[in-house]
């Protein structure tokens, strides 16, 4: 060791301290950046005796993976809940006052009153009004439901194009990470970007990561489909613009494998994509089936001698003349009050008492209530409903329509509870992740003080060596 060596070592410390300070300042700048992982400048002794600072990135792979899972579960649940909330709004909100079951019970009340006083035209009129309300409610909700499906379809299309974009961007940063890792460069910034993209991708679809040589990541969906492996796999989807009850939405394919929809109110969907598929292909069609069965129940209940009575339906532009025998998709959108009883269309409300297709009150009695009593009895009798509706298969019409509301409410409340749980899990994992990898300004400041001292000490050293050299020079004078 010599004076020159001592000078060199002190100089090296300047460079190291400068690098460490740069890292601290970068950390502080990114203190509020959620996608930033704290860097640490570490001094290492090398085999040739020098000390150099290398930058390391604090990361916790286990927490990161857990965070990705939490993100996709939480977003999936949120997406489903938003859809269910919208369905609830269609039914009028908390009291479900716009639901078919509300109007149906009004119709039943009015019908009872009318049956007690069958001669009263105004009572007949109010039955017809209630019947119109029921039909309108079924039409409106069915329409809104299909609108929801077409919007979900549009959202799926948007998610798919976003996913494709994210995956190609993921390739850019994954390649940078691979290159930097292979060649011993600084991969930290690319890693930040890649982790951020992972978060964005997992909000669309749940992913699991497999780390390969050189920190190269392969992405698989939670169903094991390859999403990214060296190259991004294409995600394809053919959007359907308009929906009717019978429209079957197209599936989303990742690498040629269909993306399965989520199931249940506490959905199994990971990410928004499976949740949107569940909404479009499971929840909405299921509720549509319930509406269709309610409509069929109404037409069946008010039928007269095998032909539609008070309620009829439009079969492709013309008024149908038959009573549907089983689940008829789209019936809720097609159900109408028979124009024969609508005074606005030249009909006679009193035909409800006397018979629409054939006059059964041949004696023209003012208190003829055979038909009306029959209808009321029908309200009390059990009917058979299609299992596709997913609720009671043998029950009365009123109970069926109430159960339909109950079914929706059950899905919604399950989704709400699950949303709270999943959001709590997300915030917990995020907290854990941040406390492991985010920047703590206090710590950085403390470190900065240390660095300042170290820098000052080196400066002192250099000054001392300089003085010694000067003394030597003066000696040669």
């Amino acid at each position, binding site marked *: 060791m010599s004076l020159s060596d001592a000078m060199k070592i002190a100089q090296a410390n300047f460079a190291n301290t400068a690098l460490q300070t740069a890292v601290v300042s970068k950390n502080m700048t990114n203190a509020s950046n959620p996608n930033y992982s704290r860097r640490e400048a570490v001094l290492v002794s090398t085999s040739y005796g020098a000390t150099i600072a290398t930058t390391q990135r604090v990361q916790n792979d286990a927490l990161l993976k857990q965070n990705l899972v939490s993100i996709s579960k939480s977003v999936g649940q949120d997406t489903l809940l938003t859809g269910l909330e919208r369905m609830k709004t269609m039914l009028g909100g908390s009291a479900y006052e716009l639901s078919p079951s509300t109007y149906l019970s009004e119709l039943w009340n009015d019908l009872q009153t009318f049956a007690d006083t069958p001669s009263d035209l105004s009572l007949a009129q109010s039955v017809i009004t209630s019947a119109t309300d029921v039909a309108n409610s079924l039409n409106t909700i069915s329409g809104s439901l299909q609108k929801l499906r077409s919007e979900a379809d549009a959202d799926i299309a948007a998610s798919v194009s976003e996913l494709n974009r994210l995956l190609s961007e993921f390739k850019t940063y994954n390649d940078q990470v691979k290159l930097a890792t292979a060649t*011993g460069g600084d991969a930290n910034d690319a890693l930040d970007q890649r982790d951020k993209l992972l978060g964005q991708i997992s909000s669309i679809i749940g992913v699991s990561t497999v780390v*390969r040589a050189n920190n190269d990541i392969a992405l698989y969906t939670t169903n*094991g489909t390859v999403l990214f492996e060296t190259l991004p796999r294409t995600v394809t989807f053919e959007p359907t613009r308009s929906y009717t009850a019978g429209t079957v939405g197209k599936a989303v394919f990742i690498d*040629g494998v269909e993306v399965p929809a989520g199931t249940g109110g506490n959905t199994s969907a990971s990410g928004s994509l499976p949740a949107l598929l569940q909404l479009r292909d499971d929840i909405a069609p299921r509720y549509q089936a319930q509406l269709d069965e309610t409509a069929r129940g109404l037409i069946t209940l008010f039928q007269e001698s095998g032909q539609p009575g008070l309620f009829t339906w439009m079969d492709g532009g013309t008024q149908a003349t038959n009573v549907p025998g089983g689940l008829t998709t789209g019936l809720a959108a097609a159900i109408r009050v028979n124009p024969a009883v609508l005074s606005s269309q030249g009909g006679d409300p009193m035909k409800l008492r006397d018979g629409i297709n054939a006059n059964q009150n041949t004696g023209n009695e003012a208190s003829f209530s055979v038909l009306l009593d029959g209808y009321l009895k029908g309200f009390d009798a059990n009917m058979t409903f299609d299992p596709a509706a997913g609720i009671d298969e043998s029950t009365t019409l009123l109970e069926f329509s109430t159960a339909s509301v109950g079914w929706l409410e059950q899905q919604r409340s399950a989704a709400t509870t699950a949303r709270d749980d999943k959001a709590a899990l997300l915030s917990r994992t995020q907290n854990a992740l941040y406390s492991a990898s985010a920047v703590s300004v206090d710590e950085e400041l403390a470190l900065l003080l240390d660095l300042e001292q170290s820098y000052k000490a080196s400066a002192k050293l250099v000054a001392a060596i300089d003085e010694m050299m000067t003394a030597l020079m003066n000696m040669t004078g």
Partner: protein
Amino acid sequence: MSLYGTMRTGVSGMNAQANRLGTVADNIANANTTGYKRADTQFSSFILPGTGGAYNSGGVNTNVRYSISQQGTFTPTTSSTDLAIDGGGFFIVQGSDGVEYLTRAGAFQKMSDGTLRNAAGYTLMGYPYSSSQDPTIVINGFDGLSPINMSGGGQVVTPSSSGYLQVDLPNTTADGETLSTSLVAYDSQGASRKLDFHYTKTGDNLWEVTVTYTPPGSTTPVNMLAAPVEMEFNTSGQLIAPNPAQLVTEQEAFGGAVLAPLTIDLSGSTQVGVTALGADGSINGSGPSEVIDYQVSSDGIVSLKYANGDLIPKFRIALANVQSPDMLSPLPGNVYSQSNDSGVIVMGYPGNSGLGGIVSNVLEDSNVDIATELTGMIEAQRNYTANSKVFQTGSELMDVLVNLKR
């Protein structure tokens, strides 16, 4: 006689100190020269045999030595072609005269022709890689060495040849159901070819694997296996067939390019109670990518860094040493050549015993210490003065002697 002798001795002493001052001057001048090794003077007495009562003053012999084997401190730099040797070896460089020399000065720069030249204009030599195996070395000579050339030669493609694919197949899958995954391979011209792997369950613990490739713009998959491969698992879900656990795809031609037969290692695949296919796989190879940088590893392998992250070794830097490095004869430009006393040159790779390793982004400073040189200089100055006094005294005495006769 003795007065003249004294004067000659004084001159000899002055010459010796002048030599010493010369080395000091060189050392100080080269205090910041990369790889410079300080010169030092040692003196030996030159005494004439005395006869009886007469003393014949002799003189002093100067012996210049070089601290070649003493390693200097390291200074970090930002250039990856700045190299230093941590250990006893020497770089082998070639001068413009085509002769190989040894040096410790590793401040190399990439020249327009791709060669690495240091500040003194010497070109770094090494053994070229013809394959991934280490080039053979000639132990006692410079045969087989060629200038290290960093020029990349455009795009480079590494066609795929093998890979692995571990899958966890869900045991709940119904017979006849197919699960798929895919891996990317590269053909001989570097185009990516996505291979789809289809696993069809054929019975209890039995699966059939097919590999297909669907050309772009086509919907008809091309079968990549001569026959589907049967996979069989034992009761604990471990793969027992095929044995060895691998499949080999057929060679496939795409226009002028060829996708070579790929050996895919299937070992580690299981059939377990999971609900969805789990896969972990990779196929080697890389698409066309250009050189973006180069890297010198501590064992002297000069690799080109390609944009896809691959490192392809091109050369291996050889190091040389002699039995007595301090006896090497120094030549201008911080280079040394073998001398009679140094012993023969022994070649080796960095990391071989005694040669040391190569450090990139670092330069070796000169091993000159200014303080030592300055104190030496003062000493030389004083000694020179003292010797001049001896001469002066001799001269004055001669004067007295000559003045005896008027």
